[in-house]
């Protein structure tokens, strides 16, 4: 069973898109994702579109994120794919009817693929948060509109994903060459993001963001036609009646829960900034992402092979959770041409996954994430860059608490197991402003 588990994990990691799992920007990551009230860079397209109005002019950001899981199963390492890719985006700000209007885009492109689906049998063990759904391109676009200059703004954004439907229709033949057709369509799904941002006091910023859930449907119907098979052509003896094989694979994938995130940021002094957020995540809407495979055999093959009806997938009963996050930024040195910022953050995510007492084996546990970062904001003394540019980095340790899963029945093929481990992350970005 362990071998099977390891083999499966070779192929991938799972829930929530990369922004949910790994954050949406380098500074935001360094500050533990407590960013709903800050969001003055491209990360705002995810954390809070309304807060984008804090950004002026034009800016481009380009960076790289890397996360390496070191997870265990029964105290032995399992191979879960790393998650790494490029993040880039830009912001442009303009006054329209004397109101500040800022538009931005934040895009994450994984190294290896634009999108990956990996649908497993339900009994197959998997680290449900890290094995598939992080492997997808994410594109968030957002606009913020300042209602009261530098005091109150609203925002709206969209997150783009894609449904996948369609399959092949084939004729495999003995008397002539086989042939087939295909009709496949990946359709766009747009999930809205709404935000409010305010600065009731000069030192205090507040942000509120609603993100609709995203979920991809996979529907792959495939049909194989086999004409009547004959042998001894001159006598035309039928040895297998005309047959059809239907293979229909259906599943859900790339789930990201509906979220409401509230944050506050306090500029204690010119050198100190602290932020705190809490996010409600509706994991109870999660569908089992195991494969629902329907196979039907008609005609001659149906007489040779029997297919038993498959039991329907059960509700996985995930729970809604609250995720607190905290961030701090300290500026120890500020000179005419440069400024140094040190950052730190923490968040805690209780696992939404219930005890796996039955046939399913979704592995997850309460998680603590600790992050630290550094940022350099510099002016170009040669006059090439019109505004200060930034170089930012962060490192993060995510600790999955050890969790013991005890099955209801000794006859359960998965048996009892223990999970836990760490995920190491790193990211860096450069930002140009105009």
């Amino acid at each position: 069973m362990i071998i099977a588990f390891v083999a499966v994990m070779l192929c991938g990691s799972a829930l929530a898109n990369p922004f949910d799992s790994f954050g949406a920007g380098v500074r935001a990551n360094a500050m533990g994702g407590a960013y709903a009230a800050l969001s003055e860079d491209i990360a705002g397209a995810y954390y809070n579109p309304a807060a984008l109005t804090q950004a002026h002019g034009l800016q481009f950001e380009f960076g790289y994120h890397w996360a390496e899981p070191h997870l265990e199963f029964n105290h032995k390492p399992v191979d879960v794919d790393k998650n790494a890719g490029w993040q880039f985006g830009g912001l442009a700000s303009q006054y329209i009817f004397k109101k500040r209007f800022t538009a931005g885009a934040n895009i994450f492109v994984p190294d290896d693929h634009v999108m990956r689906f990996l649908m497993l049998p339900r009994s197959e063990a998997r680290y449900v948060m890290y094995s598939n759904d992080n492997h997808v391109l994410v594109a968030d676009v957002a606009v913020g509109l300042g209602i009261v200059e530098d005091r109150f703004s609203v925002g709206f954004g969209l997150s783009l994903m894609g449904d996948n439907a369609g399959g092949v229709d084939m004729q495999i033949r003995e008397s002539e060459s086989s042939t087939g057709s295909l009709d496949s369509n990946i359709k766009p799904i747009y999930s809205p993001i709404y935000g409010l941002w305010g600065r009731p006091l000069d030192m205090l910023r507040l942000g509120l963001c609603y993100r609709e859930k995203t979920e991809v449907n996979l529907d792959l119907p495939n049909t194989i036609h086999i004409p009547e098979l004959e042998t001894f052509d001159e006598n035309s003896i039928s040895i297998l009646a005309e047959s059809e094989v239907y293979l229909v694979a259906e599943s859900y994938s790339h789930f990201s829960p509906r979220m409401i995130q509230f944050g506050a940021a306090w500029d204690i002094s010119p050198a100190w900034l602290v932020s705190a957020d809490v996010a409600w995540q509706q994991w109870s809407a999660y569908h089992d992402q195991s494969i629902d495979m329907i196979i039907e055999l008609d005609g001659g093959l149906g007489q040779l092979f029997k297919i038993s009806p498959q039991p329907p997938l059960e509700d996985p009963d995930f729970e809604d959770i609250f995720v607190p996050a905290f961030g701090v930024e300290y500026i120890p040195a500020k000179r005419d041409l440069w400024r140094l910022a040190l950052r730190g953050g923490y968040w805690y995510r209780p696992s939404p996954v219930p005890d796996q007492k039955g046939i399913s084996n979704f592995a997850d546990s309460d998680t603590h994430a600790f992050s630290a970062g550094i940022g350099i904001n510099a002016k170009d003394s040669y006059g090439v860059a019109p505004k200060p540019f930034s170089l930012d980095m962060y490192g993060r340790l995510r600790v999955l608490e050890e969790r013991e899963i005890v099955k209801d029945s000794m006859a359960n093929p998965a048996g009892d197991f223990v999970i836990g481990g760490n995920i190491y992350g790193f990211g860096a970005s450069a930002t140009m402003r105009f």
Partner: protein
Amino acid sequence: MIRIKIHHTRRVAALCFMIVVAASAPALGDALFTYGYTPRGMAMGNAIIAGVDDFSASYYNPAGMALLEKPSFGIGYMATGDFLKALHADDEIELDDMQGLLIGSSIPLPFGAFLSRRLAFGFSCFFPDGVILAIKVPYPTEPQYVLLQNSGRSLSVAATVSLRIIDGVAVGGGAQLFDNTSGRIDATVDPNGKVEATVGQELTSYYAPIAGVMIRPELWSGKSSGFRFAAVFREKFFTEYEIPISSYLGGVPLVVNLRAVSLFTPRQWIGGVGYGKNGSYHYELDVSYNEWSEFPDPNFDIDVKFEIPLLPIEFQNSKPYQTDFKDTVTIRAGGEKKFYDGDRLDLWGRGGYAFEPSPVPDQTGETNYLDGDRHIGAIGLGMEIPGFGFSDESLPHRFDFVFQYHYLQKRVFKKDTSIDADNPGYPRIGIDGSLWAVGASYSTLFDYQ
């Protein structure tokens, strides 16, 4: 002073080299190859690579972005339809109508010192309604509009950069993102009839490069009118689909490997000459060499492994079909002229024509790829009004509209006598009819605020 100039020239040369090498730019999807990108360009028969000076530069010729004075942003919508008819076919062939949203921007980057007015960045996107990537592979002998059926079946996103070498001379490049589809379907039915399955599918990305150069002598001579020259290279692109289906029926393997290539758009070499006066008129002639001869077999490549015990049956794999498409030369001509110059409103009239020869050979064999030479005519209207809403009235709002009509020359193919009578194209099959497209866009200039 001289030393500084040499120093700057080296940096510019290095940047130029990087851009050309990295030349990763826009070769947007098949819909844009067929109809064009923006209403302004479409109305001029897409003869605009030497005269493009707005947000569409990222698509038509990225080199043009570096010659812009201010950033430009545009958004628009395009819809297409057809009156095509498959002649002598038993069944009508449906060609999906296509609508989609276009968005683009060309942004000169306001660096200082030696990079002053040197660099620009841009992007161009086309979002067909309800589609990110759709692949349709009909049966090989099924009558099909082999080139037109894939219009609007792929979201297109491209990013470009541009470098002004000297006043009036710029190069640009970029890349368009495409996806291939691969994966597997594994299903096992045990002797008791219980099903166990694993499905994997992934979209992997690749990039089709584009590069362009634009020369506008009037910008270094200081004149307001003159000839403009441009050249654009677009790499071919296509998408691959590969998914093996492996099922085990009571221990008997039924394995089918499937592979197809779709959404092919040819490598293009485009040259253009224009003559114009800023803010008044522009006329242009473009010639494009399209390498359709690399068009791959668009049908499924099927490999079957299915051995039923005790039955002496051997299934056959699919067979390849030769396409023998030929390279084509497309000629495009178009122009625009301001015909009303008011205090608060300027109006532009546009017109264009293009001849797009069909690369598809006579369909005398088993396949029934229907296509014909196309005469493309277009008219358009442009409106420009001073800025409102924005802080600066010098930043105008522009609205552009286009109607484009494609007339396909009637074409009928007579099948060889060796072709089976049950071939859907037997004894003859042909194509006749037309396509149309309409579009509207809004664009504006903006400042860095």
